[in-house]
């Protein structure tokens, strides 16, 4: 039982990370119809910036704030410079561009920061409590709280602000959005900027829970996040969150209880993606809108 609870907690901890990356994927997908394969690498780059800032003596919280701001600006620039020229190109061309971004950011990161392991300090102190024989670290609680707050803020932004209304209008019908005077270009820029900022925060709270910051830190995360978004439905932010948690818990339990998966846990998300595509391609929360004429 204790073991089960421990694994459940690990699963939730990883799950919120997958959820936050999946949320960024869904945000971009909903507004631009683009599957951003570079989301993980964008987060990785931001996390290296956070590390660099702490290495230069800045406190971790301040470093996260600064790198989040930098990520926001870079996200906007990426939309403007790389995405906008291919906005109306075929999905295949766009796919190539985001995969190109993945490879480019990946190698730029290694070139700038080197390929040795880095230690990113945690934003949380090393406290822990024992609850029903399970050790609950402040690190874990912090991770869950920060990412839950991130999801909540994004939800509030989308549902309760004018900017959010504009973003949703562009996602729903770009042409009509322009006809009411909404500049869709500006909205898409905001979408990418916010997604990049989410990635920076996610990376900075996730990496300290892993052994070290390396060039490959976010690659598995991206795969799990893709599985989470597929499971939840690519057009549903709520689906991304629920999908992330399910994938995280499924992974943790599979590691613990399914002997042959011990060393190849990465098959878990692939099995999930395959199963969803086979049985419910819209995902758990994806909507196909009912349209009557």
């Amino acid at each position, binding site marked *: 039982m204790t073991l089960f609870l421990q694994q459940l907690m690990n699963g939730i901890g990883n799950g919120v990370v997958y959820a936050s990356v999946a949320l960024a994927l869904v945000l971009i997908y909903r507004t631009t119809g683009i599957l951003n394969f570079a989301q993980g690498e964008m987060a990785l780059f931001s996390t290296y910036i956070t590390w660099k800032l702490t290495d230069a003596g800045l406190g971790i919280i301040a470093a996260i704030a600064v790198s989040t701001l930098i990520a926001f600006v870079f996200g906007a620039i990426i939309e403007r410079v790389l995405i906008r020229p291919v906005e109306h190109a075929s999905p295949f061309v766009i796919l190539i561009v985001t995969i190109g971004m993945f490879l480019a950011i990946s190698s730029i990161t290694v070139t700038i920061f080197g390929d040795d392991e880095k230690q990113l300090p945690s934003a949380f102190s090393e406290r822990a409590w024992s609850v029903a024989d399970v050790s609950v670290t402040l690190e874990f609680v912090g991770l869950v709280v920060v990412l839950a707050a991130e999801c909540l803020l994004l939800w509030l932004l989308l549902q309760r602000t004018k900017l959010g*209304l504009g973003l949703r209008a562009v996602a*729903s019908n770009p042409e009509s959005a*322009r006809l*009411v005077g*909404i*500049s869709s270009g500006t909205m898409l820029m905001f979408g990418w900027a916010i997604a990049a900022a989410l990635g920076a925060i996610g990376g900075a709270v996730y990496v300290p829970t892993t052994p070290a910051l390396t060039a490959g830190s976010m690659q598995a995360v991206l795969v799990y996040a893709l599985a989470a978004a597929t499971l939840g439905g690519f057009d549903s932010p709520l689906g991304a969150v629920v999908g992330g948690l399910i994938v995280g818990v499924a992974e943790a339990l599979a590691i613990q209880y399914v002997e042959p998966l011990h060393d190849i846990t990465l098959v878990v998300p692939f099995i999930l993606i395959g199963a969803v595509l086979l049985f419910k391609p819209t995902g758990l929360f994806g909507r196909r809108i009912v*349209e009557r004429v």
Partner: protein
Amino acid sequence: MSVLKVHDLRGGYGPVRVLHGLSFEVNAGEIVVILGANGSGKTTTLRAVSGMLNATGSVLLHGEEVLGRSPERIARSRVAHVPQGRGTFPELTVEENLRVGAYSRSDSAIADDIDRWFGVFPRLKERRHQQAGSMSGGEQQMLAVSRALMMNPELLLLDEPSLGLAPLVTQELFEQLGTLNRTTSISMLVVEQNANLALKIAQRGYVLEAGLIVASGTAAELKSNDEVRKAYLGMA
């Protein structure tokens, strides 16, 4: 003074030329209809006016050239375009659709205006928290018109508002448009195949054939024009 004055408008899609030099105008407070069969270029004309299509010639709004401006900029000059097929935001609620219509406004009367159009179209009020995409065609058309009116437009462009609507619903909609025109100063440019209803509320009209204006006149003149009667009013 004309609200909209279009001169020698030419344009199309890539190598396909659709408009071959149209000239027409809408005066302040007028409803003007452009009649034309399927494929004559009605939608293309409206898209050129609202900046969604590369075109040459001249499009003057209150005497100011707007050809070449972006759609969002033209919209902010208080031109509201209800596109063919309604162009609502299906995932947003009815009320959110109306708030999107007021996106470029910064005045404090937005909530009052929402109530105002709910008063004109009570069915929208009943469905204010419902997703727009789940409503009937008639309700969506009313929503599309209300959303356009939320822009506080000086000029309303309507692309075949009767398309896909039951005759009774169409009639109700046109009556509302006529009333609006009398009670506000909004000028309207309506493109239609349904000449009967359109000529009832319009003061003037043009007939478009294969990208060219082939007839024009007051609504009464067009109604008694033999060609128009044959082609668009279903009379011998």
